[in-house]
């Protein structure tokens, strides 16, 4: 069942188009990663799905309803980021109680345990938490809500490495115990690689790639070797990324539509074949330029 269907979605802010002809659909009970550069429109898309902001044109359907002002969508979804706004007068335990009164699937047991595990003070106040603790608390609320659609927008902002690890683990465990549709947008693709089932990659406000993680891992291939040889082999291909190493060597990433035999001959010709990790691949694909940061410092 498609829980989120998006057709030709467009969103402009002050005349500038952020999302443009965006179309995709998300099946239920999958963990999807939303990847893209800063400012590509990830948060915008997620807020439209959550019903916070309106689309400029196109169609978006969540549970077959338009999410803006839909009570059903609000009751069955939750949007978690570090900007989640809570009344400052309520203490943390009161916020959990409020959440339990609103969300029909709320798991107070889980919330309390996570709460204690991460050493929160029940009588503390949300606006006095540090950045990392805020993200952690918000993530707890998101997890314990057991909402059929759970959206995490950069959920690990400010969290230290061990807390991040714990969060991913908790997410996975709870997801397995209580399957639901989860969308995570994050910059740390390498960290969540093993968590994601699908990847939705945005570029230029469009759906650039939407694949299962397994396919993404094998989507591209990296070739390294003498520059002329590389040129031969990738002449007719679309280069995702290239980088000159030293005077004569190049590293190039291209789409992996080589036959196995072709790869063998490439190896024999002296080229190094490597797999490309999803996080690197995402960076290369969404790159605005062909070169790298080193070019800024060349020829100075």
């Amino acid at each position, binding site marked *: 069942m498609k829980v989120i269907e998006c057709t030709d979605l467009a969103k402009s802010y002050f005349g500038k188009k952020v999302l443009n002809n965006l179309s995709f659909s998300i099946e239920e009970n999958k963990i999807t990663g939303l990847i893209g550069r800063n400012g590509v429109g990830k948060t915008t898309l997620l807020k439209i799905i959550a019903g916070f902001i309106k689309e400029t044109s196109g169609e978006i359907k969540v549970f077959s309803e338009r999410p803006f002002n839909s009570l059903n969508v609000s009751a069955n979804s939750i949007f978690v980021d570090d900007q989640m706004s809570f009344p400052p*007068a309520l*203490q943390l335990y009161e916020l959990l109680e409020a959440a339990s009164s609103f969300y029909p699937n709320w798991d107070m047991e889980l919330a309390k345990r996570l709460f204690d595990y991460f050493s929160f003070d029940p009588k503390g106040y949300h606006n006095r938490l540090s950045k990392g603790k805020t993200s952690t608390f918000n993530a707890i609320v998101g997890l314990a809500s057991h909402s059929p659609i759970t959206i995490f927008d950069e959920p690990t902002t400010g969290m230290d490495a061990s807390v991040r690890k714990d969060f991913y683990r908790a997410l996975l465990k709870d997801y397995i115990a209580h399957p639901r549709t989860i969308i995570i947008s994050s910059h740390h693709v390498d960290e969540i690689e093993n968590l994601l089932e699908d990847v939705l990659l945005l570029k230029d406000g469009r759906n650039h790639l939407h694949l299962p993680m397994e396919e993404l891992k094998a989507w591209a291939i990296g070739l390294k070797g003498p520059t002329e040889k590389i040129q031969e082999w990738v002449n007719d291909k679309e280069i995702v990324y290239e980088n000159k190493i030293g005077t004569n060597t190049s590293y190039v990433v291209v789409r992996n539509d080589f036959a196995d035999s072709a790869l063998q001959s490439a190896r024999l010709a002296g080229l190094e074949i490597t797999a490309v990790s999803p996080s690197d691949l995402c960076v290369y694909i969404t790159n605005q330029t062909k070169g790298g940061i080193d070019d800024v410092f060349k020829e100075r």
Partner: protein
Amino acid sequence: MIILGTLLLVTAILIILVIVISLNSKRKFVTVKITHWLLIIYVGVLLLSFPFASLLTNDSMTSREKVGDLEEDQDWTRFYTALGEGKLEQLKSWQLINEKSYDYSNQSLKVEITGPVSPVYVERKDRDDGKIEALVYTNGLIVSGYDFSDKLVPINFRLENDTFSVLHPEHQSINLSIVRNEFTINQFTGQQAINDVSRVGNMEVYLKVPKSLQLNGTNVDFQYVKE
């Protein structure tokens, strides 16, 4: 009234105690509970002050004469007509604010007034009984429909040898504090606006003298009552 004062003091101390205790109890009651307590105590104090305030203002008002709504002009005329025609029975008993009686058997009497010039009403009695009765009447000091003429220092008299002095009191300031209902009540009950002083306590002198007493005075306007 002392009871009232002490009760309120006790309540205030209780409030402070509660706040201090809750602040000290390891921050357990802070903020959330404090605002609850604040509201509860405040409402409690308000409810308590209801009967107290009623007690405070009760006696002083209900024992006063309540004056009905009379047209000011009509009322003015009635007062002065009654005085001028000697029809004292038309005036209410509370309007008499001073009454003195003097023995005087001389033939003539010199009358002096210290103070503003105002008419002295004189009624000649049927016979020479050697008594002068000096009365002071007021039209009333009516505020919010209640009379406060007991606040007035009345005109006084002195008889020395053959001079009768009418002594107007020094300039007097009378301050009254009155409770008014709020505009949200007055809107529907039609109570008067802020200027509801209807009579300002003007006083008049009325003398009852023996039949053939000669009265003379410089600058005294004798109004002889017509029978």
